[in-house]
């Protein structure tokens, strides 16, 4: 149940750093912030596969964050552990170090950090294609917007006219988290705990990533290169395993890839035009010859300010995603169109609503999504999420998930 799989030697390093911060005038109360959430999920339909047996699921999580610095912010430490406890699925209960690092900043132009880091690359909403550094914490939420910490040494070089260059050296791969047999929102398969690797170093495979980004003339441009274990696993059917409750067992296989890509965003009047594209080279799907594949996500966001003579802003989103790989892993849809609408009420409670749908162009599976959030009082936020497969033809991975439509409400407390 305790799934912090990486030995936090760096955690020990930062701990000793923290003890050296005796001289720092950091205010003890302000140094620690974070959130605690309680979540209730309701699945209206019967589960499709045993041993899934529940309609309701209660879970809670805590994500505190500790920040301390000295010498006017030139030396700092940041620790952000995470713990999730789930009533139904032992594999969904897990802990992580989202961040645990020591950083040093030299003047305005460079910064070096070491430890568990979090980085986000990308501009599109429906898919985060180029976000290469952090592994997806898929068991948290199937939308793939939660990420595990990544051990790395990161050097950032920044100049106002030249842009930003980040270089990452990593060794300490994180495996993707998947629901357990009892968990809902999983494929008609159980994903084995024991992953396989192309690299003989397995998780200790040395990895390198670079990203250059710059903004000019209303354009944000990012170029990146990545070498290492691909974060998306290939799922291999394990024919030797005993099926659990009739469900086949799949083993995640992590291959080593070279990847290069770009992300770009352009502001044009009320439109934000977006593009993420990449090419990757790695073992083909028979795990034999090298294969090169490309993927791209592109679209726009159009903002209407103050609709219906009110203070409400309406954002319209449309994105198209293309990925020329065959069906690999829990990426539901591979040639998709996503359309969505975001309402920001601009009220005191910062109420927002996001409604969207995504369709796989070839398969026809359609997924609908509704999210809303609102602040209650000063430190409490209420979130709502409702998702379902509106159409999931037999023979597609979505077909099994059509029974896992859910409504989820989360109450978050911030401190």
């Amino acid at each position, binding site marked *: 149940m305790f799934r912090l799989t990486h030995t936090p030697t760096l955690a020990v390093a930062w701990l000793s750093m923290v003890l050296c911060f005796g001289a720092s005038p950091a205010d003890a109360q302000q140094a620690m*912030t974070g*959130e605690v*959430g309680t979540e209730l999920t309701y699945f209206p339909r019967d589960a499709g596969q045993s041993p899934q047996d529940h309609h309701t699921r209660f879970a809670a*999580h805590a*994500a505190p964050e500790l*920040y301390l610095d000295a010498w006017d*912010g030139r030396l700092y430490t940041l620790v952000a552990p995470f713990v999730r406890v789930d009533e139904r699925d032992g594999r969904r209960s897990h802990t992580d170090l989202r961040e645990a690092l020591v950083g040093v*900043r030299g003047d*305005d*132009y460079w*910064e070096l950090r070491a430890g568990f880091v979090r*980085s*986000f690359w990308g*501009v599109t909403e429906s898919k985060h294609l180029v976000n290469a550094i952090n592994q997806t914490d898929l068991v*948290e*939420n199937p939308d793939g*917007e*939660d*990420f595990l910490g990544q051990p790395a040494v990161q050097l*950032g070089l*920044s*100049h*106002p*006219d030249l842009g*930003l260059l980040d270089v990452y050296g990593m060794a300490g791969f994180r495996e993707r988290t998947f629901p357990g047999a009892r968990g809902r929102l999983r494929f008609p398969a159980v994903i084995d705990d024991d992953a396989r690797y192309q690299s003989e170093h397995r998780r200790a495979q040395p990895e390198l990533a670079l990203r250059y980004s710059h*903004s000019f003339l*209303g354009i*944000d441009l990012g170029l990146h290169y990545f070498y290492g274990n691909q974060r998306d696993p290939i799922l291999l059917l394990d024919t030797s395993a005993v099926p659990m409750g009739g469900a086949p067992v799949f083993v995640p296989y992590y291959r080593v890839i070279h990847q290069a890509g770009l992300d770009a*965003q352009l*502001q044009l*009047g*009320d*439109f*934000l035009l977006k593009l993420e594209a990449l090419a990757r080279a790695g073992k083909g799907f028979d795990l034999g010859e090298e294969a090169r594949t490309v993927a791209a996500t592109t679209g726009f*966001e159009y*903002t209407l*300010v*103050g609709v219906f003579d009110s*203070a409400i*802003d309406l*954002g319209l989103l449309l994105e198209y995603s293309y990925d020329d790989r065959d069906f690999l892993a829990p990426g539901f849809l591979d040639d998709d169109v996503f359309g969505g609408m*975001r309402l*920001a009420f*601009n*009220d*005191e*409670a*910062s109420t*927002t609503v996001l409604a969207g749908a995504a369709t796989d162009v070839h398969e026809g599976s359609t997924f609908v999504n509704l*999210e809303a*959030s609102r*602040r209650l009082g*000063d*430190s409490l*936020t209420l*979130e709502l999420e409702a998702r379902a497969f509106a159409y999931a033809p037999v023979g597609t991975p979505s077909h099994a998930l059509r029974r896992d439509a859910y409504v989820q409400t*989360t109450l*978050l407390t*911030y*401190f």
Partner: protein
Amino acid sequence: MNRQTLETIPANPSTAPRRRRARRLRGLAVAALALSLPLWPRPGAAAPDAATRGKEIAVERDRRDDGYGDSAASLKMVLHNRHGQTSERALRVKNLEVNDDGDKLLIVFDRPRDVQGTAFLSHTHVRSADDQWLFLPALRRIKRIASNNKSGPFMGSEFAYEDLASQEVDKYRYRYLRDDRQDGQDAYVIEAIPTDPGSGYRRQLQWIDKRHYRLLRVDFYDRGNRKLKTLQNSRFEKYLGRYWRPLSMRMVNHQTGKRTELFWADYRFRKGLSESDFTQGALRRAR
């Protein structure tokens, strides 16, 4: 797991003007004034006079705020609804005057706690659309946001982004109306009509004190020309021997009965901030 609450956002809570353009306009205003001298004083002296005089006052106010370099301050906002309930916002603002272009601005949000750590970066431009980015701490993501949202409320308050943005002289047509007394001071009253079609206002009435050219009060009229809000600035303090800043701002919405009070504190000027404090790298680091 923190779904973002500050997705579409803000404009320009900067109060600093464009330096070079202001100087050019001042020259123009003076020339126009000189050319119109033979027409004074004529009874029923008409619109061109009032327009020139109005612009001259606006330009002078702009000029007096020039050259501060960079500044930083803390801001507390208190929102009052119709029923007397209040909620608070707290944020820290950094400002940089830029040669030949608009100002740069970095805001870090402290309260409410669900947006704590969110940061906003704005590069305003004189000749093109502003560039604005938001840093969302839950994902460690920098997101560009559309900068067309000037008339929307800032953090749910009665201040629109355009109210807090730097008052560019060019963005309005002016007309001098009369002299008046406001807050115990002699003041000019000028009418400012926004030329930006994205503005939420048809016109504004501005009270500018004669002695220091500080903006004392503004009446805002909505697009239907109905009186919408009144802003009152008070508790002015002088920094670096010449720059006046109000420590209190009060915006009352006459149509909804709500009001917002702004309290500025910890003003610091010329801290040595530079462009590298207003890059996306700096946005990512902001705390």
